[in-house]
């Protein structure tokens, strides 16, 4: 039974992260997503520390805000302090992650809920221990699953209604501004959603590996899609395939489940990339030989 819930929960994590990841990727902000996912750590630690409770809404809110703060800081460093964009990202996320680690090592000694292992790859194997049971018989599944479902609803609705806006922002931000659209608001809306995703995913997959869910499936999808909707759909498919096969691989080898899922995701990416290159080059070869024969015939 727990297999089922783990796969289901992780699949929703993959969908949530992947959908937003598509927009990050298209905006060339993949590493900003990486930074946000690291940067929510201090927010999560502070929220744990003060509320002492995993279910707290305060936790989610506080941690989400640190992610947005990271996005803001990156912006500030590159625009006001004129530090290169890449370097701004590196500085911001290492700083916030370091703050989180210092908090953990000084406040969280012996805390079972949050330790460095959990930061690395979450507690996916044990999510079923924190479950929702209505009365003795009716088991409704792990709490993390419901948190993810709520996040999915928020993200799904935002993307559905804001589809045009996010698309325009990703394709051509100057043009969006020329239409009088407040791109700042849209930008921070996206950052908030990304931050929210990484916060709720923290418990399941940790802060470090979530970036694999955020970037790899969308990148794989981008290789094979010609339209944005297609890309979103493929992202979900690639994400879910990685989750399922990664899970069974992990069980078989007795290794980290999250690690295995992201690893498989990476393998899928490289497989698609190489497959595509082989196909393209053979196609080119065929075209070339056709041209050659035509040329020969014409010369005769």
């Amino acid at each position, binding site marked *: 039974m727990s297999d089922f819930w783990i796969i289901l929960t992780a699949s929703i994590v993959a969908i949530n992260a992947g959908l937003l990841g598509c927009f990050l*990727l298209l905006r*060339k*902000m*993949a*590493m900003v*997503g*990486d930074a946000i996912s*690291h940067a929510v750590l201090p927010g999560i630690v502070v929220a744990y520390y003060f509320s002492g409770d995993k279910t707290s809404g305060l936790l989610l809110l506080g941690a989400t805000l640190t992610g947005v703060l990271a996005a803001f800081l990156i912006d500030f460093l590159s625009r006001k*302090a*004129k*530090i*290169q964009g*890449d*370097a*701004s*990202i*590196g*500085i911001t996320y*290492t*700083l916030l*992650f*370091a*703050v989180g*680690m*210092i908090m953990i*090592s*000084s406040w969280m000694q012996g805390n079972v809920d949050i330790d*460095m292992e959990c930061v*690395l*790859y979450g507690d996916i194997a044990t999510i079923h221990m924190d479950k929702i049971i209505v009365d003795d018989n009716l088991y409704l599944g792990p709490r993390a699953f419901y948190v993810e479902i709520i996040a999915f609803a928020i993200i799904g609705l935002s993307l559905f209604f804001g589809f045009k806006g996010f698309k325009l922002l990703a394709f051509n931000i100057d043009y969006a501004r020329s239409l009088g659209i407040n791109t700042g608001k849209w930008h921070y809306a996206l950052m908030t959603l990304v931050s929210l995703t990484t916060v709720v995913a923290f418990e399941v997959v940790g802060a*470090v*590996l979530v*970036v*694999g869910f*955020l*970037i*790899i499936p969308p*990148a794989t999808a*981008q*290789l094979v899609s010609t339209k944005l909707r297609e890309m979103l759909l493929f992202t979900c498919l690639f994400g879910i395939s990685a989750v399922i096969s990664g899970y069974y691989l*992990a069980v078989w*080898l*007795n*290794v*980290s489940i*999250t*690690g*295995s*899922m*992201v*690893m498989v*995701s*990476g*393998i899928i*990416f*490289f497989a698609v*990339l190489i497959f*595509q*290159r082989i196909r393209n080059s053979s196609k080119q070869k065929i075209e070339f030989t056709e041209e050659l024969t035509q040329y020969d015939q014409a010369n005769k």
Partner: protein
Amino acid sequence: MQTFIDFISFKDPNVFYVVIGMICINSSSALIGSFAYLRKRSLIGDAVAHSLLPGICLGFIMAGEKNMIYLFFGAFFTGWLSTYLVDYIVNKSKIKQDAAIGIVLSSFFALGIVLLTFIQNGGYSDQGGLNHFLFGQAAAINKDELILFAVILAVIVGSIILFYRSFIIVSFNSDYAKSIGLPVRSIEFLMTSLTVLAIAAGIQALGVVLMSALIVTPAAAARFWSHKLKRMLFIAVVFSVFSGLLGAYISYANSNTPTGPWVVMILSIITLISFVGSTKRGILARYLKARKNKSKILLENILKAIYHYHERQNLENDLNLVLASAEILKVRRFDTTELQKGLNQLIRRGFIGRENNNYFLTEEGMTESKRIVRLHRLWEQYLLKRTSMDIFHVHSGAEAIEHILSPEIEKELEKELGIVGIPKEDF
């Protein structure tokens, strides 16, 4: 206090290893990071750092124990592979560099985690220290590693000295480097290898997750202080070593806390201080400069106004003409307290003198005010001649510019316009 004395007196031989180790590690990565910054490839270091983990684990599995040589070569191999893959993805598909870095970084790191848990669950003895590579533990540096780090630093410093010019040219403009016949590929190969070496050394202290701070942050902080590469390299090294030592000390004093986060914190604080206080691009310097500009403009405008008063009386060269501040205000609007402050300053500088409540230009003041008025009018003439501005707009267009024109530009204006003395026309 006692711990501090223990620390700096190397009472514990381990402390000695840590200190020397941090100096080697941080110097190496600061040097490499500065070049990475110039090449706008700061985040590649992030991908490399994360990619070392599977290499270390593979090295461990192959050796069956924590054999430094195996770990190191494993790390070097996967680190190299990661930069190769990033370039491969960017060149061979429509995926852009940032996403390529993210893909490689997370795939390799995930592989590392898988291998790490494989080792942990696989009943290897002596695997305890592998965790240190995740978040860094400077205290774990031992003598053998120290020697390795020193060698790496020597290799990096040696290569930079030998290939300094080639590195610069390739960093700034690799197309140009190619065009003048430099072996760009070999140089890039060397730079990548050095980067992987530096990072491989660094993860002992910082851990794979935070390692990119050692690459990125010192360079970014140093950039505030100098635009000259040599000086930037030096400053980056100083910042980085200082943070490394302080971080190692804090971690030593609070046993059990990892070193990495403290080093990163201190480096970030240094960056912040640089941003505020640096002499070139800091906000403090900018604020001071703005104040200086403001006062210069005020003083020169007062002198200009006095000279205009002279002109109105047709007494351009008369040093005996005196006027009250009210008369200055008739020529040009000033805030009265500002004007008073400005007049006092001009007296202190010897440009004007005071008699009862009246003011007059000194010889120097006369020369100075003529210079300013002349610059203003030369610029007006220039605008008239070279742009479409008409006589109604040139005055406001030239306002404020007279304060900035340097003597060299004055000469050029003179030559271009063929004007000597002060142009009579005032628009």
